[in-house]
């Protein structure tokens, strides 16, 4: 099947999933036996007219099913509604927060995937040696720790006790954000030729991205290790050795590419975990991203924001998996896209 045809097919299949996502979040957020109008209107000091107006705007007086159809109707017109917590359209909020999270997540992957793969290879080659045990132990501790605890500890250690990294935020005070193109500060500042902002952005990314990626690093390390071990026992590795190839070539040319196949899947799946983990990391490092937005939206019963957020995350996640599947086909010629 041709690649574009495959992509179209996947994108079409995305639609029912997204409808499902809206139904699911709609149901979850609307079974709450509380109506948030009072809250949006400002709490005890709210004027009754304001509350009633918001209730009407949100169609809270209607049955849930009707509310859902109102939502769907807006959605097909690319209107995600209004965020009452931020008192602006949800799309505005998403446009601001999504690139921040994307930047953080991408850097988390850029840190964790190479480190995880290298660690996994070392661990597999030196199986059951001390360095293997140590690497694995660190990795396993890595995903046994609550991420927020890790974040707090890093912050305390590297921003306060040994102040070598910035405490929070995306840029230093006094550095102004580059003109928005992609919303990724690193990219935008390079586009604008603003090296100071780029440096500052990278500097601020370091700690949160590492924290966020740590669990993924551990996961990828473990995955690479075991698939590497599995591949190293395969017949074609024996063949490669029988050809007289050096151990280096055998490992890096013949074994690694095969071993990477499961690693790629894990990376794709971990993208979702990263988006989820961002809730905690962003809160601590004061990263103005989707995670923090989602958390406050969920707690504040800002339905429109919650729905918009999940929708965007779901799309991102599904697209990430599509990319992974395409990557698959690049790494492994046996994989036929959409093949039977």
């Amino acid at each position, binding site marked *: *099947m041709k690649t574009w*045809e495959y992509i*179209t*097919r996947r994108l*079409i299949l995305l639609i029912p999933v997204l409808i499902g996502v809206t139904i699911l979040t709609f149901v979850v957020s609307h079974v709450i036996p509380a109506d948030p109008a009072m809250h949006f209107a400002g709490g005890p000091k709210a004027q009754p007219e304001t509350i009633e107006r918001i209730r009407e705007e949100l169609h809270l007086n209607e049955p849930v099913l009707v509310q859902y159809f109102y939502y769907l109707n807006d959605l097909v017109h690319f209107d995600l509604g209004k965020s009452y917590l931020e008192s602006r359209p949800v799309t505005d909020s998403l446009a601001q927060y999504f690139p921040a999270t994307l930047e953080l997540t991408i850097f988390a992957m850029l840190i964790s995937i190479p480190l995880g793969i290298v660690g996994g290879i070392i661990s597999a080659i030196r199986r059951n040696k001390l360095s293997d045990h140590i690497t694995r132990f660190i990795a396993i501790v890595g995903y046994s720790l609550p991420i927020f605890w890790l974040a707090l500890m890093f912050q305390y250690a590297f921003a306060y006790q040994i102040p070598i990294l910035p405490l929070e935020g995306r840029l230093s005070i006094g550095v102004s954000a580059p003109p928005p193109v992609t919303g990724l500060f690193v990219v935008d500042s390079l586009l604008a030729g603003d090296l100071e902002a780029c440096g500052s952005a990278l500097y601020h990314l370091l700690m949160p991205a590492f924290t966020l990626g740590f669990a993924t690093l551990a996961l990828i390390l473990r995955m690479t290790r075991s698939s590497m071990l599995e591949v190293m026992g395969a017949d074609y590795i024996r063949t490669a050795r029988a050809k007289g190839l050096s151990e280096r070539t055998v490992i890096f040319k013949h074994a690694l590419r095969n071993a990477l196949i499961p690693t790629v899947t894990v990376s794709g799946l971990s993208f979702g975990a990263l988006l989820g983990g961002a809730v905690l990391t962003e809160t601590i490092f004061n990263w103005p991203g989707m995670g923090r937005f989602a958390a406050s939206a969920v707690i504040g019963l800002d339905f429109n924001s919650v729905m918009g957020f999940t929708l965007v995350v779901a799309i991102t996640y599904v697209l990430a998996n599509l990319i992974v599947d395409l990557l698959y086909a690049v790494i492994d010629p046996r994989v036929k896209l*959409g*093949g*039977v």
Partner: protein
Amino acid sequence: MNDEIILKTDHLKEYFPIKSGIFSKVKDYVRAVDDVDIYIQKGETLGIAGESGCGKTTLGRTILQLIKPTDGKVFFMGSDLSKINKKKLRKLRPHLQIVFQDPASSLNPRMIIKKIVGEPLVINGVAKGADLEKKVLELLKTVGLTEQHMYRYPHEFSGGQRQRIGIARALALNPDFIVLDEPTSALDVSVQAQILNLLKDLQKRFGLTYLFITHDLSVINHISDRIAIMYAGKIVEVAPTKDLFKKQLHPYTQALLSAIPIADPNIKSKRTHLRGEVPSLIHPPSGCNFHPRCPKEMPKCSKIEPELKESSKGHFVACHLY
């Protein structure tokens, strides 16, 4: 052996759909069994031989209705298996059994032997409790195993022993007809002999009818009364064993037989070389599907599909040469 036909297929077809495209439309089919007509007489052994992937296993599974045939009929003792409903089919199951190719994967690794062999009895309500135990033991003894084996798991057995267990399970319900799907191909030669002997004994004792599937022609020669040669989903030649080994009509059969290495350095075989490889079952060649490899190819071979015709008594062949 008598002349009563116990099983007969009528234009049996099994096409596996291949799905693809935006809405998983069925694009193509694997024509694993394509228009097969065979019959088996009571008490005889019909051997099915052919290259790997030509559809032998699928034929066996289709006959037993383990997969629904795409088209065609299977008559077993007069009733059409492909028509009757699930309930009736379950009632008929005890009469039709199968022994699988791979003894390792055909036994549930998490069940003890007593459970495995006893399962058919339990399901069909034949025996229970102490009676069950007695029955199972009897079956194990029939295939040369003992009481001490009853409480072990499959992985504690050798390949040959596992195949015996598979046979015991097939025998549990006193079947009339057993499909033996390459029962010895996963086994050592020395063990293969033991199993073949056992099968012959059992056939004699219980008057069984076998459909014996294999790709090993020396084995098939040893065990079957008649042989059907299968090529890419179709039967190309059927003949009594003796006739077939004396005189092969179809060029494919000739090539197949000549390809067998003979374990005697004194005999130097003359080979008929075949070009190319086993054809794809998705896009089988037109006309006679053997024609691209056939040393005696004629112009009409690529156009017209030959029919299975009786060339001498009991000897059928599907080839334009005859």
